[in-house]
């Protein structure tokens, strides 16, 4: 042990009092924690590569293996019909990734250390969801590039395309808060990993891969009111891909952009406070 030095001085700043000051620090702390997750990715390039290869695999799997025998209602290229579904699917599977990251922090005691640090209760969650947002944007861009290579095109101009992209990112952000809640509630990473099969059907019982109209009557309402379907329909509408709304469909599919916005807001209103509440009151 080296010679003892005088005790390190604590930062002299007194705890923030004003709401503005607090809010600013919430974002500063959140950003520090965003960078933490991004540094994880930097240290494990394998994880990053998986993240980038996954979209290509999905395009081959669904676009070519299955897609070769599927006929699009109303005509059109199946891979053009499919791509919005895959964009959305990548967004929703992100839920499990974030749940796993949060569960790992809980299981390893990192979350307890964060709790003992004088930062806003929400900063840890903003850090996790913020990092997921960046990962989400990145993987969506890669997915779109893969789609482009497979023949998917934007037909309604850049502004609408950007609107669609914004909706994808917004919905991903909203469901990532659900992921945080799940991650905080489970015991460890492994339990979180075991929940993957639960999220998968959610993305399948939708209009992502096949139109909801052809499903049996008991399944059809689930698919029609699934937020996945709203977002997929919104993307098809804004990108101008096959599978436009037709008369007789359920309300969310006829007004997909509005439905997607409502779903996103609803998810945020429910799961943001829920996540913060769970974080504040640990089980033990």
């Amino acid at each position, binding site marked *: 042990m080296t010679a003892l030095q005088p005790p390190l001085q604590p*930062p002299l700043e007194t705890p923030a009092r004003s709401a503005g000051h607090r809010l600013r620090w919430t974002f500063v702390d959140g950003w520090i924690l965003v960078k933490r997750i991004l540094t994880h990715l930097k240290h494990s390039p394998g994880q990053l590569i998986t993240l980038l290869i996954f979209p290509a695999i999905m395009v081959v799997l669904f676009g070519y293996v299955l897609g070769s025998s599927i006929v699009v209602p109303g005509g059109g290229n199946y891979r053009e019909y499919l791509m919005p579904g895959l964009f959305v699917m990548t967004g929703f599977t992100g839920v499990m990734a974030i749940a796993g990251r949060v569960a790992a922090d809980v299981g390893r005691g990192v979350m307890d*250390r964060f709790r003992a*640090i004088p930062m806003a209760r929400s900063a840890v969650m903003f850090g996790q969801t913020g990092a997921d947002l960046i990962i989400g944007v990145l993987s969506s861009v890669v997915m779109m590039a893969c789609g482009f290579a497979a023949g998917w095109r934007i037909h309604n101009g850049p502004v609408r395309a950007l609107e669609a992209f914004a909706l994808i990112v917004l919905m991903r952000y909203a469901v990532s808060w659900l992921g945080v809640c799940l991650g905080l509630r489970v015991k460890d990473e492994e339990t979180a990993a075991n929940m993957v099969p639960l999220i998968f059907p959610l993305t399948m019982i939708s209009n992502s891969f096949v139109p909801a109209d052809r499903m049996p009557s008991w399944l059809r309402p689930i698919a029609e009111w699934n937020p996945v379907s709203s977002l997929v329909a919104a993307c098809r509408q804004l990108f101008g891909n096959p599978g436009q709304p037709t008369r007789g469909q359920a309300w969310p599919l006829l007004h997909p952009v509005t439905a997607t916005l409502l779903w996103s807001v609803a998810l945020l209103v429910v799961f943001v406070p829920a996540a913060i509440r769970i974080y504040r009151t*640990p089980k033990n």
Partner: protein
Amino acid sequence: MEPPADGADLVVYAENLHKRFGKTEALRGLDLAVPRGTVLGVLGPNGSGKTTAVRILATLTRPDSGTARVAGFDVVRQADELRHRIGLTGQHSSVDLKLTGRENMVMFGRLYHLSKSAAEKRAAEVLERFGLAHAADRLVDTYSGGMRRRLDLIASLVFAPSVLFLDEPTTGLDPRSRSEIWDTVRDLVRAGTTVLLTTQYLDEADQLADHVVVIDAGKAIASGTPDRLKEIIGSRLDLVVRDAASLAAATGVLTVIGAGAPETDEPKRTVSIPVNDTSPSLTEILRRLDQEGVAVENIGIRRPTLDEVFLKVTGGASAGSEQMTSGKGAA
């Protein structure tokens, strides 16, 4: 409890803490006090409420009732102010395994609102001072258990916490890592930090703590300095005679001068008896044994270990059982 004369200088003060998880009563009226610049060792078996007590004092859990103040702040009502003054190292390594040691330290420094350059400087300083500079840029994942725990301990030092809570800081570590952690804790205390540590190891409390509180089933059942606690059992005089035939004579001498009943072990040729301050000196005892013609092979006064104290106050083999909660410690 042994409250110091100046009650205002208690850095940690908890009174009548109660906490229940479902059907389990983790704390049943726990009192704790730690004077400034000292180390309190909280000793107890698994499930005695040690961790719950630390979590309450470190603002992670709210007590159902009772009050606690740390560094002058109420743990419930002033939790945020308090968090600026405490460091916590839990039972599990709570550093980020997927970051390097340095990245961990800088991140914690930034979260305590140091500037980027100050955080980097502080991280380098602390890593150097506590012997982790050589591993600073490796992922914590690749550290040994002892190194991880050490990093965990010093992660709180990116700022200078006035109180440090260590929950079983050496559980599961090899002896060398343990003594390294002990050195680190001693260093921190010398630098003026007040420490509350929980442990299952009595030698750890003996090594580090100024005061020890033994808790069982959510209540303090004994407290005092390690020396004071050992007095509960008292010292013993152990005598080994050269010839088993003189055992009876030796027992006779010791019975007169001892402070209790002698225990004789014939095959081992030993007599053991409790002694206290009024017992004659060792020289005097030897003289009397000599007079009786007892040839002494070995004689010595043995101070009890904290283990013996612990077993005694927790009711021997039934440590952790219900019956002991009524036992009042000798503090």
